[in-house]
């Protein structure tokens, strides 16, 4: 930890600071339960801009710590308060940071078991990191990206939706944005730049493929305002179940029509309850 700030909050303690990953400082916050916990939840955040998800992580980590487990939230390189440039980033870097974060969090907390919480794109990162960390006990997937290419193309589509919401004609199609990325090495998306280097490093990442060896308990939380599990999430659940994985899938619809990411308390409690049940 390069610099650390600790705050005691009732039954748990929060410690925020920076740790080293691949020679650069990354921001992290460890939430320590009052009693030393054997298990720590490591939150792998989504790619680039994730303002509402970032708040959801902080809230969820605190709820999990209140419930007697430790938790760790961190910003990978080129994200949030950490060092690093998006221009240099590769998918492998994100996995390295997740592994370094888990190693660090385990040393700070004394926990022996890791439960990964992968959020959107972070699900892909967690699914790859899990293979490199002994002691991975469980995997929670919050609105998981099923593959990186689709996720990034969807980010391009959001530019079109945004332009339409302003009453403008979309300036480019997804195909044209992809061509520009290929040609110029960078495209500007909503709130972040996507670089060809990252796109090419990540585009083959696939959640089910990465989870081929995984047989641990798995929790899928769908953050959508639908009353049923989406087709994609159903397929994910069925495929994992078919491999012998114990899967629990839950819906997080938000309350009163609000964006479910802004009201993460209930899903955090459910994730904590699932953590309690892990043998």
């Amino acid at each position: 930890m390069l610099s650390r700030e600790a705050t005691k909050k009732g039954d748990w303690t929060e410690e925020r600071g920076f740790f080293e990953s691949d020679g650069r400082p990354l921001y992290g916050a460890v939430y320590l339960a009052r009693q030393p916990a054997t298990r720590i939840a490591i939150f792998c955040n989504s790619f680039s801009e994730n303002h509402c998800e970032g708040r959801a992580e902080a809230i969820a980590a605190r709820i999990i710590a209140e419930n007697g487990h430790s938790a760790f939230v961190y910003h990978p390189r080129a994200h949030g308060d950490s060092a690093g440039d998006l221009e240099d980033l590769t998918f492998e870097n994100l996995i390295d940071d997740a592994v370094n974060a888990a190693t660090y969090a385990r040393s700070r907390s004394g926990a022996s078991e890791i439960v990964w919480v992968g959020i959107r794109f972070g699900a892909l990162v967690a699914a790859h990191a899990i293979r490199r960390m002994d002691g991975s006990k469980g995997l929670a997937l919050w609105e998981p990206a099923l593959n990186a290419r689709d996720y990034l193309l969807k980010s391009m589509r959001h530019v079109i939706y945004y332009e339409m919401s302003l009453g403008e004609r979309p300036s480019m199609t997804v195909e044209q944005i992809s061509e520009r990325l290929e040609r110029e090495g960078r495209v500007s998306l909503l709130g972040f730049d996507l670089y060809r280097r990252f796109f090419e490093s990540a585009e083959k990442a696939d959640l089910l493929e990465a989870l081929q060896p995984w047989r641990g308990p798995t929790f899928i939380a769908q953050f959508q305002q639908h009353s049923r599990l989406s087709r994609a999430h159903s397929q994910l659940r069925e495929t994992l179940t078919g491999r012998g994985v114990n899967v629990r899938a839950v819906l997080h619809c938000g309350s009163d029509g609000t964006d479910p990411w802004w009201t993460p308390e209930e899903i955090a409690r459910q994730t904590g309850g699932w953590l309690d049940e892990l043998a």
Partner: protein
Amino acid sequence: MNWRETPAMLSRARAEQPVVFTGMKGALYGIFTPPAPDAPPARVCVVFPGRPRSGLRRRMVLAARILAGEGFAALRFDLRGRGESAGEVARPSRIEPLGEDVVAAIHYMREAHGQTRFLLAGYCYDALTALDSFKYEADAVAGVFVATPTVLAEKPGGSSGKRRARGAASRLRSMVRRAREPKILRTFESPFRELARSRARALFLYAEEDWLRDEFRVAQEVLFPQLDGDARERLEVEIWPGRIHTIEGQTVVVERAISWIREFHPRSGRHARDELQPIGQEP
């Protein structure tokens, strides 16, 4: 502007300290970036209130490190209900800016880090929030960068989404409403007057094609003519072509904030000129 991380920025990242301080609605979380020890000291602390503190494209993170590398202290923090900070998340309200959070940040930086002079910078609602703190801490603030906040008590004509959804009768009522004298927000006017009475400089930045430009035009017509000579000198206005109140616009706004804040460094030409120019004297 090149936003690539330089060795100086990386060095400031290594020196950063997470901080927590008490706001009106609970703990507020931020990151303090100390000034580079080998840079000529600016003797002023830049405060970036944020939703969240990183800003879009992490521009506030990078701005804090760039400025700290040049001798400024910097604090970026999550306003209540955002990022790590306590409080209920709420839609930004033009009648409820969060100046008290900025005041809490100023108090904390004064007490815990010995900072005495502050520069505030905000974009959109965060700019209104920065301005709002003048009600309480005008004497401590050397300057405020105010990019494209709301000015009027009511958005002229309502939002475009609402406009589309309204019927003809409702539109007619709205036109009648629009014909009324536009009312300047109390939350804009009151701190604006405090700013005018203070010794602080300010830069108000808007863009011609943003709908907020129309709101600011009212402030230019009503409030700015009331300024005395000294305040007119201190309160600058820039109206850019195009739009800045967009997701893409924030980058150029933060670039301008950085260049404006640099003028407060004792080594800058502008600062030297201000030091020679007694407050209240016409140039």
